[in-house]
Each structure stands twice: as structure tokens, then as C-alpha cells.
């Protein structure tokens, strides 16, 4: 019989390891400040 792997365990194995130095993309909003913040 096919043994159903626990989802958590599978997820653990399937999680793609982050490459070293991975920098998450900057948040989409709010945008950059063009002059100064008040």
C-alpha cells in the first residue's frame, strides 16, 4: 500500500531552500519618496 506522507513532512522536504544571500523583493507599495517625507 502506498503510505501517505504527512503533508507537513512532505512540505518540509519540498520547501525550496533559500539560496544564501537571498534578498526578498522590496514591497510593491508605498513607492519611493521623491523629495522629502513630512
Amino acid at each position, binding site marked *: 500500500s502506498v503510505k501517505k506522507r504527512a503533508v507537513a513532512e512532505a512540505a518540509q522536504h519540498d520547501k525550496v531552500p533559500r539560496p544564501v544571500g537571498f534578498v526578498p523583493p522590496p514591497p*510593491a*507599495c508605498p513607492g519611493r519618496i521623491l523629495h522629502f517625507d513630512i
Partner: protein
Amino acid sequence: VPAAPPAPLGCDDPESQAAADIAVNYINGHSHHGYKFTLNRIEDIRVVPQGPNKDIIFLELDLLETTCPILSPTPLENCTVRSFAEHAVEGDCDVKMQKVDGTLSVLASKCNSHADSSEDLLKVCPDCPLLAKMNDTDVLQTVSAALNDYNSKTTESYLRLLEIGRAKIQYHPGHTIVTEFAVGATNCSAEEAKANVEACQLLPKDQSNFGFCTAVMVKHPSQDLRVDCQLYGHQVGAPDIPLLSAHWYYTS
């Protein structure tokens, strides 16, 4: 398999910037008071697809006041942003736009403007003068005296006050009032106005000639008044500006 939905627009994406530029031009084009505003930051952008080639776009924009009066013909890109030390004014705008077949247009906009907090300014610049209230007696007296002084010396058209743009009062070392106000040319020469000033009305829209004055009144240690007015000349498509009677001022 249905196509994956497009990635959400980022606030710094070129398309968001293009939409914000159109929105800022719309806001300045539909304002008749105060100063031109320029983009400082795109706070948020949301795109709601409405079917093939049609999106509704909601923008939240942070704007900053420039030193260009709203009636000035100076292009926005040539307008200096009011510096922090001059007591900056910020605008918060919500804009609804649509994009149909790639063409962006504004459906509606709502803005609120407010000066930077005095505490924040004084924290950074303790000696910077703060914006004064527009109905401050010193301010009203300075504007009135400056316009009378200018009209008494000009050989051109008699000018009427449209609105006070901003004013600042400094109490140290001397007592100084600096004001900026918008003016309009009337159908009288300054000489004619001496005889019957009530007859002097703003020129009709197809001949209108608006301008802007800055005045500095020193009350202490010695009395001094300097006023400088620049008229823009007739501009095609100038907006209808209501003439303000002496007691009613708009504020920026």
C-alpha cells in the same frame, strides 16, 4: 488553463508613475487656489480589471506644494518644491482612473492639504518662521498696505486681490511679516481707480491677466514695506476666478 492574472502593479513601476503624472496634472488643472502640487510618493495603487482592455485604477498619492501659484503659467517641472524649512505643505489625494485600450484618464479625485506640523519644523529648525493664519490682523494689514502701495505707484492696470497664498510672521530679531498673494488686473488704470475704485472690475475671462505679489513688512525695529508684483499676461484658457471682496480670503 486560464492565463495567470497579471502581477499586481508596484508603486514604483513605470505604469504607476505614468498614471500618477496624469493624476497630478489633472489635480493642478482643476484647482483654482493656492499653489501647484507635485508628486512626492505613490502610497498605493490598485487595479480592478473591468473586462478586456478596461481597468479601473485607484491611486493614493502624496503630493508636496511647490512655490508656483496655481495660476502661474510655469510648467510644473520648473516649479521648486517648497522646502521643509519654508514650512512645507503636503497634499493627500485619492484618485480614481480608468485605462481603456491602454489610454489612461482620471474619473475623480479628492485631495486634502495640510501644513507640516509646527513641532516637527521647530524641532529641525528652531528659528524658522511658521505659517501664519490667513485672518491674522498683521497679515491682512500687510496685504492691504502692500497692494495699496503697489497700486499707488504703478502706471499699469489697477490690481485687485484674488487670494492670499501664504504668510509668515517672524518676531525675532525684528517683527517681520512676509506674505504672498494672487492678484488680477482690472479694467481701470491706477489713475482711474483713484476716482472710482468700485468701478474697477477684473478683466473678463478672454482678457484676464493674473499675477502674483510678494510683500515684506518690517514693523520693528523700523517700519519698512517692500512689495513686488509680477503679472503673467493673458493666458488662453485661464480659469474663471471669483473676485474676493475685501473681507473674504481663500487660503492655500
